[in-house]
């Protein structure tokens, strides 16, 4: 969090940004996958910045490229993935592409670490929980068996696992889902990472446990000062827990802003649609849940044009012909969006009103009745 006197005023944060270096910088990251149908552009030109101790939320539907983004940073992409030339990922000023995982074996897993989506499958089933922890600790930190055991028990206690000495000798299948996710978190933070990537850490858990896990992550981050990327498809998860949010769609970041600003002044129609899709407590019962029509495209040889145009209630002719780039909004340097007709601007309002009146967008999609300017 920034230390401005009025932390929620964007201008103060902007000043801060000038002083503090980005800890993680992703520049024009492009990851394509070779498939029988052609090259799928899973991540197609992503730029991100994350400062020390901050949390970045990455939000988007399934298939928007969030997980590929995190795996590219972790260097655990599938063998058919290709990171294109010009992609750059810098951690603390070091270009990760120039770091050889063989020579620098204590970067991934130590400075950079990751929590996966499904705790049911992300622990090795045939090794006890304790063994998995001590293996990691001993490999990276060169601890002896006794010290590693003590540290593992400490970590298990730290992530809130009762009776850590007993759990140490248990296998993953003997623990509940929430407990297993605590173990994967213990594994991820075992070597005090500087950056923790949590890829949908709560999607596979039930709601009460979700809350506990998110709080655990927040507390761990607060006490260790690590940076964190929280990947999710649920805006509700990132709302109160991140400093900035990047909204991804079809392999690109379509909007990026400080969290509060994103919720109050969203510019991209996709962000708006995502926020509208969160059920509200004050809705009368049996209100139809809002949804975004259609599905995200699979991007093989995309035609020019905004990839969201087909589903966007604001879409105009221009949106189907030109590809918008991510540009800074005039009112805040830290807020950028990739849209020709951003919400909350005169052009955007005109475009959307025109579509509502016509009942159909320039892409030929009917405008649903719930859509407002």
């Amino acid at each position, binding site marked *: 969090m920034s230390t401005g006197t009025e932390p929620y005023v964007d201008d103060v944060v902007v000043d801060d940004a000038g002083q503090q270096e980005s800890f993680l910088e992703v520049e024009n990251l492009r990851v394509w996958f070779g498939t029988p149908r052609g090259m799928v552009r899973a991540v197609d030109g992503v730029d991100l910045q994350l400062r020390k101790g901050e949390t970045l939320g990455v939000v988007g539907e399934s298939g928007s490229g969030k997980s590929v983004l995190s795996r590219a940073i*972790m260097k*655990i992409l599938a063998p058919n993935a290709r990171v294109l030339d010009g992609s750059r990922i810098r951690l603390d000023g070091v270009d990760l592409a120039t770091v050889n995982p063989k020579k620098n074996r204590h970067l991934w897993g130590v400075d950079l670490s990751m929590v996966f*989506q499904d705790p049911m499958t*992300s*622990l090795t089933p*045939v090794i006890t929980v304790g063994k998995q922890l001590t293996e990691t600790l001993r*490999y990276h930190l060169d601890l002896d068996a006794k010290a590693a055991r003590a540290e593992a028990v400490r970590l298990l206690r730290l992530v809130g696992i009762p009776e850590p000495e007993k759990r140490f000798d248990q*296998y993953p*299948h003997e623990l509940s889902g929430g407990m297993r996710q605590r173990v994967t978190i213990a*594994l991820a933070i075992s070597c005090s990472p500087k950056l923790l990537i949590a890829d949908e850490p709560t999607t596979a858990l039930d709601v009460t446990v979700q809350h506990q896990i998110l709080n655990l992550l927040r507390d761990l981050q607060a006490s260790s000062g690590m940076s964190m990327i929280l990947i999710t498809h649920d805006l509700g998860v990132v709302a109160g827990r991140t400093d900035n949010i990047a909204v991804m769609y079809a392999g690109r970041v379509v909007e990026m802003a400080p969290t509060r600003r994103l919720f109050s002044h969203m510019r991209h129609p996709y962000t708006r649609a995502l926020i509208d899709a969160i059920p509200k407590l004050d809705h009368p019962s049996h209100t139809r849940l809002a949804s975004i029509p259609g599905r995200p495209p699979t991007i093989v040889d995309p035609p020019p044009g905004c990839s969201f145009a087909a589903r966007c209630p604001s879409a105009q002719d221009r949106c189907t012909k030109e590809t918008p780039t991510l540009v800074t909004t005039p009112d805040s340097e830290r807020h950028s969006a990739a849209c020709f007709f951003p919400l909350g601007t005169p052009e955007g309002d005109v475009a959307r009103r025109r579509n509502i009146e016509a009942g159909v967008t320039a892409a030929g999609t009917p405008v649903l009745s719930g859509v407002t300017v």
Partner: protein
Amino acid sequence: MNAVVWRRRAGSVARFFLLLFLVTVAVFLLLDLIPGSPVDAILPPEATPEQRAAAAEQYGLNDPMWQRYLDWLGGILQGDFGRSFQTGLSVSDQILERAPVSIELAVLAMIVALAVSIPVGVWSAYRPGSVVDRVSTFMISATLATPAFVLGILLVYVFAVKLGWLPVLGWVPFSEDPAEHIKRLILPVLTLAAGECVLFTRLLKGDMMATLQQDHVLSARARGLPTRSILTRHSLRQSSFSLVTVSGVVIGRLIGGTVLVEAIFSLPGMGTMVITAIQSRDYIVVQAVVLLSAIVYLSMNTLVDLSYPLLDPRVRKVRTS
């Protein structure tokens, strides 16, 4: 180890003994199932009725069947498989003399097959399309298309006849000349191992590829663990179910059935013994070998069964629920 685990193990062992009983009955009946009386098998066709009666008396063939079974079983439990009808020699002595040859062949072939197939299978699964993978896939197809006797003869032709690196045939006991003993074992062991090696590699590669696609492997990689540890500790054990199962069957098959290879290389194992016995209608020898093979099979399968919980702790739980 809780009570449930032990109860299940006891179940495995109980099944083993039940099957063993059925096997002995079936093997015992072999003699009675041969067309005609066992006496026909023992005596030449021109024997007189008096000779036949004397033989029946001598071998206890006039007793009721259950009594003959018990006598036979009692003998076997004391290590007495009876005497050959043809030579009058003790079958036990013959087996004791020949079994070590077959067992040595089988065990060595097994070790060679596993030593080759485990690294090759693991690496082919880890790097599909790599040189190792492509070469092994080619070798698999080639070996599958080559019967063991063809391969054996081919090996003899190339290494013994053409290159002259190794002796052609025959057997020298280890006690006489260890170096020569090993030299003469190389080709038969290779011939036996080739087929099994191919089978093991394919099984392991398939299971391993499935395991390597699981999340926990990705998670181990994200922890920065070395590839060696990911491929062995985190993947190999749980990928070896099929391999262990088939290994059990294969070692049973190898010990009881190295017939072809022993014949090709004229080795004095149980295989050649069985061939001679069959040719001379010496059924009591056949009976003994069949029984031993069945026991080896059963024991191996029971061991395999008992090993599953060691391979994957989840099995300990799943089966009880």
